[in-house]
């Protein structure tokens, strides 16, 4: 008897280990059927379920109980059952609900991409492009905050925060003293430190990497350059605190920024320490490996040429071809 369970997502069947979430099952297939995730972060325990961007429709619960689930579910927190059938991009209901979530997320997130340091690396920017409306229907005053320096290396710009809780989980799980969290409730909620304490410990810089928008930024990099003008290079060093595996972001011969390496879903592979991130900005500090691979879909890929290929998942599936018609047309054009 197989110890795997079968799940079908947008018509594509995959066998996964029991306990796998729908999102991670979709990631095993890859391509456009992978739901977006703004708050889920595979390296952070307990994350996910909050932003609701990953919602999908379960049209068949399982082989044993084929009834559909009554509501859309958060794919990052719903585990698969044997025989489950899921609709993501093939469900108009999901697309509409997701566009609703994007609209809500953008209510209190300024579209200041031209000056935001996260531009080019922002999940919300991509999501807004894919699902957003051309103009907002929200006509009321947005909430605004003063920028706060939380420590000498990190700046919090609450205006842009979408309350994904990733930084709170990061501080909770990989640092030894969490001093920041969520204050207030509802749309008055805000990330803050305990009476504006500095966030100061070996791994605090990772909150910058996990932030999906530009709310937490690296003060050593802020406004030094646009990310797509930089050249990312994988490098490593012998670090006593962390793995020392990083990405160096070069402009000419200068290392402008050091970040953890990220996977295709924008999640760090391994968290890095503050020494690697903030204090080692000379090429001599590092053993250079190779240029970082940047996905074709990212704006950062401009000037980092790579052949644009149609996703294999879509190529063999008529339903997915239809659902991805616009994207495929672009591919053909290229």
């Amino acid at each position, binding site marked *: 008897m197989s110890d795997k369970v079968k799940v079908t997502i947008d018509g594509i069947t995959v066998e996964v280990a029991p306990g796998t979430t729908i999102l991670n099952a979709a990631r095993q297939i890859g391509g456009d059927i992978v739901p977006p995730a703004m708050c889920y972060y595979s390296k952070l325990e307990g994350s*996910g*379920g*909050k*932003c*609701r*961007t990953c*919602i999908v429709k379960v049209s068949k619960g399982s082989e044993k109980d084929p009834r559909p689930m*009554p*509501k*859309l579910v*958060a794919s990052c*927190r719903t*585990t698969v059952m044997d025989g489950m059938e899921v609709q993501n991009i093939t469900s108009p209901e999901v697309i509409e*609900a997701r566009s*609703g*979530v994007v*609209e*809500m*997320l953008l*209510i*209190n997130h300024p579209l200041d991409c031209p000056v935001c340091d996260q531009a080019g690396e922002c999940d919300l920017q991509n999501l807004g492009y894919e699902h957003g409306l051309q103009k907002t*229907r*929200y006509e*009321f005053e947005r909430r605004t905050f003063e920028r706060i320096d939380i420590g000498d290396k990190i700046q919090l710009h609450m205006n842009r925060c*979408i*309350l994904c*809780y990733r930084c709170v989980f990061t501080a909770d799980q990989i640092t030894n003293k969490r001093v920041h*969290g*969520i204050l*207030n*409730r*509802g*749309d*008055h*909620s805000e990330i803050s430190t305990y009476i504006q304490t500095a966030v100061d410990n070996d791994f605090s810089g990772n909150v910058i990497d996990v932030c999906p928008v530009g709310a937490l930024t690296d003060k050593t990099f802020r406004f030094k350059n646009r990310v797509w003008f930089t050249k990312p290079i994988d490098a490593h060093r012998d670090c006593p605190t962390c793995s020392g595996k990083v990405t160096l972001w070069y402009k000419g011969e200068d290392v402008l920024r050091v970040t953890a390496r990220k996977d295709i879903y924008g999640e760090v592979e391994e968290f890095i320490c503050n020494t690697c991130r903030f204090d080692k900005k000379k090429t001599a500090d590092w053993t250079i490996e190779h240029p970082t691979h940047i996905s074709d879909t990212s704006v950062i890929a401009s000037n980092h040429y790579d052949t644009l290929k149609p996703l294999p998942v879509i190529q063999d599936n008529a339903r997915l071809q239809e659902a991805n018609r616009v994207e495929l047309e672009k591919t053909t054009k290229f």
Partner: protein
Amino acid sequence: MARKLLLEHINVPDIHTFDVYRQKGGYRAVEKALKTLTPDEVVEEVKKSGLRGRGGAGFPTGMKWSFLAKPEGVARYLVCNADESEPGTFKDRYLMTHIPHALIEGMIVSSFALGAHTSYIYVRGEMMPQIRILEKAIAEAKNAGFLGKNILGTGYDLELYVQPGGGAYICGEETALLESLEGKRGNPRIKPPFPAIAGLYGCPTVVNNVESIAATVPIINDGGDEYAKIGIGRSTGTKLISASGNLVRPGVYEIELGLPVEEFIYSDEWCGGIANGKRLKATVAGGSSVPILPANLSLKLANGDPRLMSYESLSEGGFATGSMMGSGGFIAFDEDQCIVRNTWNFSRFYHHESCGQCSPCREGTGWMEKVLHRLEFGHGKMSDIDLLVDVSKKIEGNTICPLGDAAAWPVASAIRHFRDEFEWHVNEPVKSLDTNYGLANYAEPIAKTVSTEN
């Protein structure tokens, strides 16, 4: 006179004391359960009774209990949800204030059935008088040997604690309640796992409403079959209803489920009719979170049958016309009441109480409130009405916990049934601003929605 099970002795002087409660037959259920029944037999009686959760969802209590995981060597907990704070719902507070021992007796019986040796009554923080009353009653019960070690010599131990809550509506959601009880921020947990598998401190836990727990006392005293004979269909037993709004006699009433809504409103035994001889305009049957119904649908189903105070009847008629029994917070509006203002008021509450964890609820509740405020205060646009419908759809079903639905339903249903009135607010901003105007005198379109049958 209708049969009363929970409020039978409500008028007996000093019924809140242990001695008087005992003289009136109190704690018989504890003696019967602990001395003559096994825990499984108690669960079976509750199943037979057909009791449905009185907190709002109406899930069968016995079935909920049977879901409780029973791993060896792991503690199990019973938590009483006394965080009642929805606008229009105040029946648990009444029960705790006047007959606290009914709840404590129910807690002992229910804890025994579930194999819990430590139980909690989680009371909303603002209810300090009720917290003091319960603490005193627990001390009395303990002195009499009904709590603590080796209760009544049966070998069963139970410690019962009262825990003041965080003072937030969301802490009444069962998983947020557990988070709060554990000393954390009261944010709902993502389910599964359900509390029956991993609840308080990660242990199997049942969370029940005050009224549900108190109802186990007559069920054990008289037997589940006897309890199931009261009521109608799958709505068995009696139900506490907190009636408010423009009624001659608002208050907390115990009814037998199946009572016609019309009788509840107009009979002298219950609410005595609409105050000041006005006509009924609308009702909210189960607390502010359930859909509002216009007068005609409050009293009759879409097919003309009388609407009954029961879980099934109040939700019948399809989503377009139905409402819900909810927690039994019955609110009546007379013909002069402004539905837009009322909807804004409800919306203001849900905006204030959203925990802020998930995006649609955090941002959507505030958005709806602001649009409703604009409509109510004479700055609305016709497109605002459809905008509200659309935003409520974007929230409904897309949130972690039911607060999103609770915020969306009142808005969507008010527009569905009283769209004329929303449009009138746009067309007549000056008149709609003046709250001293009798709306029925000035708004011809509104009069159309008022039932002429009463």
